[in-house]
């Protein structure tokens, strides 16, 4: 019994310690943001890696998810004689939930893990120590541009995912199943409100981007400086960021008031 209490205490203490370290790292990222010189070149490079190179995956996934959604919903709605509601249901589910969450999870696997692995490898080969010895802050030089790139890329990729998914559902619902295109689009237009739904989608993807940026760069910076440590950190980024995204999704949805 005493060992159980001891373990529980040790784990709780370790969790609080980790949260404290992540928060401190997050603060140092924020402090690095306005520092000179601006790392605009590195930011653009990181944006290309995280954003442009993720576009193919996001387009393909978005279109496929849209097609599946179109097929499932059309079949179900037809059963209730409400097939003309396809555009509204597809639009709302994609804009409010599926778009930001699936984009967040896809970018976590595609770009977040890569950023952790890159920074972890830099740590293992003493490149971060090398920067510190040159009086260059590694958080400002390495982590900040990448975290910012993920924060900026996420809403843009979310928009791309939703657009492609709406297109995919259109192809299945209208071109394959025979629903009127005008009915699909007008249902979509009437159901999705810009301020409420698109605003919520934008906020979610922005928060997910910030969370992923923080987690991916922190895990890279804090990993053990060997190949096993980098591997563990990369896995941990995917797991921690995915869970954080799902939790944050629920909290934003609940606070927004659905």
């Amino acid at each position, binding site marked *: 019994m005493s060992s159980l209490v001891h373990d529980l205490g040790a784990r709780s203490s370790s969790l609080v310690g980790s949260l404290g370290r992540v928060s401190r790292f997050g603060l140092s990222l924020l402090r690095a943001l306005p520092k000179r*010189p601006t790392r605009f070149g590195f930011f653009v490079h990181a944006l290309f890696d995280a954003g442009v190179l993720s576009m193919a995956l996001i387009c393909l996934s978005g279109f496929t998810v849209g097609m599946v959604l179109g097929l499932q919903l059309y079949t179900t709605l037809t059963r209730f004689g409400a097939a003309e509601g396809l555009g509204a249901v597809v639009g709302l589910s994609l804009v409010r939930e599926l778009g930001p969450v699936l984009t967040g999870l896809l970018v976590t696997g595609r770009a977040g893990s890569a950023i952790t692995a890159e920074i972890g490898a*830099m740590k293992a*080969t*003493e*490149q971060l*120590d*090398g*920067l*510190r*010895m*040159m*009086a*260059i*802050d590694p958080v400002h030089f390495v982590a900040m541009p990448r975290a910012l790139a993920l924060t900026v890329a996420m809403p843009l990729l979310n928009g791309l995912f939703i657009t492609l998914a709406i297109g995919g559902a259109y192809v299945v619902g209208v071109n394959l199943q025979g629903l009127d295109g005008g009915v699909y689009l007008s249902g979509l237009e009437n159901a999705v409100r810009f301020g409420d739904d698109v605003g919520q989608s934008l906020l979610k993807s922005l928060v997910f981007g910030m969370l992923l940026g923080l987690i991916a760069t922190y895990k890279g910076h804090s990993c053990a400086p060997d190949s096993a440590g980098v591997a563990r950190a990369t896995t941990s980024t995917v797991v921690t960021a995915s869970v954080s995204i799902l939790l944050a999704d629920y909290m934003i949805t609940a606070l927004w008031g659905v």
Partner: protein
Amino acid sequence: MIGGLQRPDSGEVRVAGHLLSALSERELGEVRREIGMLFQNGALLDSMTVFENVGLPLIEHTKQSRAEVRKRVDAVLEAVGLGRDVEPLLPRELSGGMLRRVAFARAIVMEPRLLLADEPFSGLDPLNVVRIEDLLTHLNRDLGLTIVVSSHHMASSLRMADQMVLLHDKKCVVGTPEELASHPDPAITEFIGEDGRAYLARLHELQQREDP
């Protein structure tokens, strides 16, 4: 620890009068501008070219123009025996010896007052060992740079050092190379090995030549 990358568990480290353990990371940065560090594996940024790596401290900490940076980078690369042809290469395209010399160039590009070299000879062929040794000796003897070398390469250490600190059995043994090579404790002379005996023989030979 002398560079402030690790804090001591006990005791204190002073560099140029600064007590390192009392400094914040930003204040440490000010001290580090006076220190050049040669890492064991180079620690060059692998996404940057040789020119960008060597010129990085100048770009970050000085207001030098691009042309001035280029001139200085050319000069330090020449000082370590490398030409301009290596400047566009990435670290992964360099051999071990070249990589170490580029790291050397980066460590001295800001003209530091103190150079820390972590195992500068490990993994190098004999020719490159001599090259690096000559560079360190030149910087120390001719330019007056203070150099702290951490090394297991006894032959080079004995040839170069003014003072040596031997870590043995949780104790520091301090002395000149001659004192350590002829130390009364057999554990010390055994650790220094054949290189110590060769060093003493060479020293004796030189003394005989000077006083025939």
